[in-house]
């Protein structure tokens, strides 16, 4: 029953968004069924569609988890974008600087660099909040700008190969490459960049679940998120929890760099993120701040992203911007859940009200 309740509202939001999008497509002058057919058909085609959908889902799972962990501690991390950039650059730096090392050493070092880089960038607003009470939303937004500007500078003036017109660093060492799943799954071509980072993302979902609901640290973090005064009363240091949550959140966002740098481009590419950090907020929201929900909603957003291209190509009027309309509408509907709940809530409230 409670699972049903958890699922029903996100589901309504998605269906309603597709309905609204359908009307829009109709008004523009195309057949909504044809457009949606193209969208899902391409996203689910084997092997290319599915391969790319899962590849697109990977960064969204990481950022969705990042937002989730902060949210469970009562914090809104708008800074996953900056954290993932720092993580990606950190892992690229290690891959470039220690290019000659054996993979057995280099890959773990690169992983740690991504985690530490993102974690550190997330810890800054955590410490600021715990120490001075400054609001994490403001600080994470500011740190996004700082991260982007800082990394552009390093890419342009220190890590670009001379004469390269593209804003990207020199390649990382071969030993830092992680395997593409095409190498293991028959029928999946290796040109599809879906890589081991996807498996890592799924593992992280499991770890986040265990951490939050099965360990004493997760208990303290969630207790702080639901009622800091009561947490304090129970002997939990609220300040410490804020720093811990923001650090873990940043570390998860930083792991996007593993997918991007070690599994896909094999270098740091300036401005690579397609707003993964911000979409992560929507992913967590739609996924009800639960790891399983995050997987499902990350997949949905990846389907939209992948399916937008053929919709653009094979319909007369509709462009791939329809994807953004759908994403936006989903978020609106999820955010307007209170409105949906209205009639239900009223009933529930009456039942519970003091007699």
């Amino acid at each position, binding site marked *: 029953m409670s699972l049903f309740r958890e699922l029903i509202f996100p589901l309504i939001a998605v269906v309603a968004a597709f309905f609204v999008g359908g009307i829009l497509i109709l008004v523009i002058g195309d057949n909504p069924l044809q457009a949606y057919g193209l969208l899902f058909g391409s996203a689910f085609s084997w092997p290319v569609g599915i391969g790319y959908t899962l590849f697109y889902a990977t960064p969204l799972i990481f950022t969705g988890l990042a937002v989730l962990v902060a949210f469970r501690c009562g914090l809104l991390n708008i800074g996953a974008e900056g954290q993932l950039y720092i993580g990606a650059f950190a892992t690229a730096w290690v891959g470039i600087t220690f290019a000659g090392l054996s993979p057995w050493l280099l890959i773990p070092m690169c992983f740690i660099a991504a985690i530490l880089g993102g974690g550190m960038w997330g810890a800054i607003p955590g410490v600021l909040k715990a120490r001075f009470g400054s609001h994490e939303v403001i600080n994470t937004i500011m740190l996004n700008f700082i991260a982007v500007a800082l990394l552009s500078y390093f890419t342009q003036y220190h890590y670009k190969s001379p004469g390269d017109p593209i804003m990207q660093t020199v390649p990382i060492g071969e030993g830092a490459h992680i395997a593409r799943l095409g190498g293991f799954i028959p029928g999946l071509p290796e040109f599809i960049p879906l890589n081991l980072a996807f498996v890592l993302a799924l593992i992280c979902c499991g770890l986040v679940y265990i951490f939050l609901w*099965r*360990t*004493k*640290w997760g*208990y*303290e973090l*969630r*207790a702080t998120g*639901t*009622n800091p*005064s*009561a*947490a*304090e*009363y*129970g*002997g*939990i*240091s609220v300040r410490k929890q804020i720093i811990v949550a923001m650090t873990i959140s940043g570390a998860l966002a930083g792991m996007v760099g593993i997918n991007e740098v070690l599994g896909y481009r094999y270098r740091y590419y300036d401005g690579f993120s397609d707003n993964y950090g911000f979409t992560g907020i929507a992913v967590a929201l739609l996924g009800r701040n639960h790891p399983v929900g995050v997987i499902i909603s990350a997949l949905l957003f990846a389907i939209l992203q992948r399916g937008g291209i053929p919709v653009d190509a094979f319909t007369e009027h509709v462009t791939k911007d329809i994807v953004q309309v759908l994403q936006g509408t989903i978020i609106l509907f999820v955010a307007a859940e209170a409105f949906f709940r209205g009639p239900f809530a009223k009933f529930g409230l*009456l*039942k*519970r*009200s*003091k*007699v």
Partner: protein
Amino acid sequence: MLELRNITKRFGAVLANDKVNIVVKPGTIHAIVGENGAGKSTAMRIAYGFYKADEGEILVDGKVHDIGTPHDAIAVGIGMVHQHFMLVDTMTVAENIVLGAEPGSGIALDFAKADVEIRRLSEEFKLAVNPHAVIEHLSVGQQQRVELLKALYRHARLLILDEPTAVLTPQEVEEFFSILRRMREQGKTVVIITHKLTEVLAISDEVTVMRDGRVVGRLQTKATNAAELARLMVGREVLLRVEKTPAKTGNAELSVRNLSVTDRGGANSVKDVSFEVRKGEILGIAGVEGNGQTELMEALAGLLSPSQLSGEIRVEDRDITREGARLRRELGIAHIPEDRHRRGLLLEFDLAENSILGVHYRHPIVAYAGTFLDNGAIRRRAVEIIEGFDVRPANPDLPARALSGGNQQKLIIGREFKVDPKLLLVSQPTRGVDIGAIEFIHRKLVGLRDSGCAVLLVSAELEEVTSLSDRLLIIHEGRIVGEVDPRVATIAEIGLLMTRGH
């Protein structure tokens, strides 16, 4: 004046009112008593048009009226003052009173006319308030008068008051009662919903007792007593007086020396307080709320920053003034906070998770590498607390939010007793709790004291604090202004210390 005839009301599967018959005679003060959930508020909300009855009819002055909204109720002369005031904090008294019944025609407000009317009413009923004062600057007692004026301004002849004394200090209650008596003299009818028996006996003419949605007694106040009312409310014999043997006290468990607390605003809320609590005794602190009790208890529980404290807090021989809440808990200090929603519970968490707050990081809750929670152990602990303290419904998977106030309180008390404390800090242990549960909680507290625990009790209920305590301190404006022997001191004597400070 007002008659409810065979009123039945269901909320889903819950039968809130089952063929309720209530007759309120004109010009009387009529008390409706019952435990939380007995259906008294529901019945009165039906009379006021908040809910619609599934069956039955409402008669006003002998005629059947269809009261579907509060508007209909006001039209026939029924007014209601809710437990939580419905006032706009930033508006003046006069503006609040006329809100929704604005004088004058069209868009122009005739405040002069309203002013005259408000002054006339406050004169007639001796409800002294300045019509131009802003609500947020008024005391709770004054705000209540505004609510009464609001109803009178709308020509209410019958006033329904839902738990009106819950928010008042003992002195304000006396004042409030004289207002009610004046209203009765002026021909108004008053219905007062309450679960405090002393108040019923002090103010009412007639009593209707409700239990489990049914009327179980209609009595003349003069012909009844507290024991009979309690028995009707709970459905069995209730001990109103706490039974306890003389305290067998040991050494001092807690000693507080020259403790002062500085608020964030810079003011001192606790001033140079010194006292000891010995093993095996209950030390009570009585005082009007807001005289530093809250800050004192938070300081002792380790919930304030050390920079706010001066003086010394010792447990046995250890100075804990600068220690945090976790270490204090490890030293055997348990704490039942005054605000169970803000401090005591994680309302979104289930009962099992709530039952481990404070010990959640220790053996036996944490097994496996000192990291992972042992769900079996958590459940066992939760079930032991639920059974030992009769928490209902007895389901560890329910969120704490789903419980009634009394059951939430029993859960907190059970959790804090479970750690076998050496020192128990307890604030307002029975606030908003039913009579049956109050008796239970009192017995548990005395039992804990008999087992050698030191108990420091703060309560706004004078009767509670005098009957439970072995020694009683009086606090006024953050200072301890006196110690009395609760066995011989009179309520009047204590009340005087509480308000005047000497």
